[in-house]
């Protein structure tokens, strides 16, 4: 049997001659090839670095593209939280099995404390400005807000059923920490009921029907200065301040069948009647109404000096167009919501047509409340257009949440609600304070279109002009 270590000298020599020796033919070819390319650059890419060898034996330039990438460590810190918890769990399991190290627990307790402290510190530092201005990853530009705060936005399609489904999902499936309300009382009614059932704080930016705050909910807060009940405050006060000879004697009331608009108009009617203003027409119309000619004609027939309309959206402009067609010009016209829409003046034939029209506003771009001007400037810079009232209301709701969380220092829903019930929050719509039901203890601003600008005329503390047009100018038509 041949030895296991026997090698044939002749055959091994053949092997080393070509294949396996520093002086082999293969090695000669390798050196010759290397000599030919020794001045060529070489790029080596690993999982963490890029190494560029410039050639000629010069030292490489190494560019770490992973750990040195902007935002890599910050994002990895967050994304590795899950594995970190699993690692702690494994450490604890091992410590339980073998008694652990000198500390007796393989250090999992100390590591847990370290992780908790680091997480808290990271959460305190986390903000949209941090991601936008300091970490400043170009690929994240414009998405800093959702990175800093996980913000779920769902489309309710202006459908109460969809709204209910959305909030159920946010609470039950997405397990969100905080809720912000939607717009319109019609939608906030089911959403706030769901939030109340789940013990969640619910701050709503819009939808101030007084009936929302009579259902015994204690976690509901309205982020505007007033609801439908207080909407007429400033206007009625102004009418009451007029000498009897200048007060309107008759009024027509028309309103969309809406949880915010129709109760407000009912309050107008009651309070103006108490001032001696006779009601000559009262009509509630369906939200789908687009033709106001018959209503306008009936109103014109009764010749009221003042018209109050509970308008929700474009029904305000449609109604005015119908009045214009009849060339019926009331001495005083008040409409809810619609006149604050940026398309309102153009829809009724130009800003001059809007002159003298009153409305109530929750917010004004010119108001001097703390933070308001900064908000207007930042919003305009970010979106290229000044903020709308809806945008301001959303911002205000965020301010309310922020103030409560900062003060309480936790996301405990009951504690947040308790704090809000007991404190006044400074916002861009003025200081907000709520009663037990979350109804704000203030009133809206009274505004009037004057020479193409929506001016605040009351209260005096927020007024942008001292002038109030007592008689609405005639429509600019034939």
């Amino acid at each position, binding site marked *: 049997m041949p030895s296991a270590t026997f090698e044939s000298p002749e055959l091994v020599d053949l092997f080393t001659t070509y294949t396996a020796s520093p002086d082999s033919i293969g090695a000669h070819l390798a050196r010759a090839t290397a000599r030919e390319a020794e001045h060529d650059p070489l790029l080596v890419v690993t999982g963490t670095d890029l190494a560029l060898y410039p050639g000629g034996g010069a030292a490489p330039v190494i560019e770490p593209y992973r750990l040195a990438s902007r935002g890599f460590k910050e994002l990895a810190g967050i994304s590795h939280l899950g594995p970190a918890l699993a690692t702690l769990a494994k450490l604890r399991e091992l410590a339980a099995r073998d008694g652990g190290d000198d500390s007796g627990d393989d250090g999992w307790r100390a590591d847990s404390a370290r992780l908790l402290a680091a997480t808290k510190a990271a959460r305190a530092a986390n903000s949209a400005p941090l991601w936008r201005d300091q970490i400043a990853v170009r690929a994240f530009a414009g998405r800093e807000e959702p990175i800093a705060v996980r913000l779920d936005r769902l489309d309710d399609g202006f459908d109460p059923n969809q709204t209910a489904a959305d909030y159920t999902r946010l609470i039950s499936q997405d397990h969100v920490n905080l809720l912000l309300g939607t717009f319109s009382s019609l939608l906030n009614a089911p959403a706030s009921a769901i939030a109340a059932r789940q013990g969640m704080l619910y701050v709503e930016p819009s939808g101030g029907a007084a009936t929302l705050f009579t259902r015994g909910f204690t976690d509901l807060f309205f982020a505007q200065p007033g609801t439908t009940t207080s909407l007429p405050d400033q206007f009625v006060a102004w009418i009451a301040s007029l000498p009897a000879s200048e007060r309107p004697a008759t009024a027509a009331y028309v309103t969309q*069948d809406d949880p915010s608009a129709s109760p407000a108009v009912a309050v107008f009617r009651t309070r103006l009647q108490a001032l001696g203003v006779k009601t000559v027409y009262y*009509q*509630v*119309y*369906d939200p*789908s*109404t*687009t*033709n106001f*000619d*018959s*209503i306008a*004609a*009936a109103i*014109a*027939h009764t010749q009221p000096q003042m018209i109050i309309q509970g308008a929700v*959206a*474009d029904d305000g*402009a*449609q109604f005015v*167009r119908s009045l*214009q*067609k*009849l*060339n019926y010009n009331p001495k005083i016209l008040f409409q809810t919501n619609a006149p604050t829409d940026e*398309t309102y003046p*153009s*829809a*009724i*034939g*130009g800003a001059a*047509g809007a002159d003298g029209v009153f409305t109530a506003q929750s917010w004004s771009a010119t108001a001097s409340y703390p933070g308001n001007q900064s908000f207007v400037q930042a919003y305009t810079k970010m979106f290229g257009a000044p903020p709308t009232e809806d945008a301001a209301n959303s911002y205000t709701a965020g301010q309310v949440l922020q103030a409560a969380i900062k003060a309480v220092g936790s996301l405990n829903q009951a504690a947040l609600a308790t704090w809000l019930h007991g404190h006044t929050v400074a916002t861009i719509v003025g200081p907000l304070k709520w009663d037990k039901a979350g109804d704000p203890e203030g009133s809206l601003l009274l505004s009037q279109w004057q020479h193409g600008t929506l001016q605040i005329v009351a209260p005096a503390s927020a007024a942008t002009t001292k002038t109030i047009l007592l008689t609405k100018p005639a*429509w600019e*038509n*034939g």
Partner: protein
Amino acid sequence: MTELLQAVIFGVLTGGVYALMATGLTLTFGVMKIVNLAQGAFLILSAYLCWTLWAHLGIDPLLGSLIVTVPLAVLGIGVYRFIVERVQRHDHGLTIVVTFAVALVAEAVIALVWGPDPTATTPAYFNQAFTLGPVTVPRAQLYACLLAVAVTAVLQLGLKRTWLGHAITAAAQNPEGARLIGVEPKKIGTWIFAIATATTAFGGAALSFLYQFTPDSQDTWIGLTLSVVILGGLGSITGAFAAGVLLGLAESVTSTYISVRWAEAVPTILILLVLLIRPQGLFTLAARQDAAA
């Protein structure tokens, strides 16, 4: 008395506008038995096109409607030849589904192009009125109603006096007989869709200065125009006009003397009554089903 007179004037003028908007649907529904649910979207598209001509070129919507008829006719031809006719070959009943799909797509395209905000034209006469003693006649409504009368008259004349009109009438009354004498259904269908869609330009023009509109306004108008067509009788242009006026009058008088909210229910109540008492429509003679078969 003044109140009643004013209500009647409003009713007639508004009804004329309803008729104008329903004309195209009358043709497709009456002659081809196709409920073209895209007609509402075409109406809104026309309104946006008229608005564009008015806002950017200063062309009055009434004049602009003449221009808009051209692209709308082309659109109608395209929808018929590439979508409706192909579906119709397989299952006539599916045409209502496919026109609904066209309406949805059209609404989305309109929203993409013009955005979701309410829009309206405001030509000089949009808020002006003639005063006749104690009553007021809004100029915008009057012009729209006169336009409705003109469109109805032209279409009626076209149906009575031209070969195409005779062919359309023949195809409506006896499709097989019409085919035997050389009336090609596909060609007639193309013409009907072209005319029906083109006439929405006039309805859209009126809509643009009478009301504000958004991409989804079609929902409101398709229901109303269907009511007019059913009331007037399938395929009857003059019937549609009369039905529109009747509807407008009923709404106006109900709003004035009963309630605005009841006025919303007037079209439904009238349709129920007509279907119970005179299912062929108020202004159409009962068709011989054997001849039409």
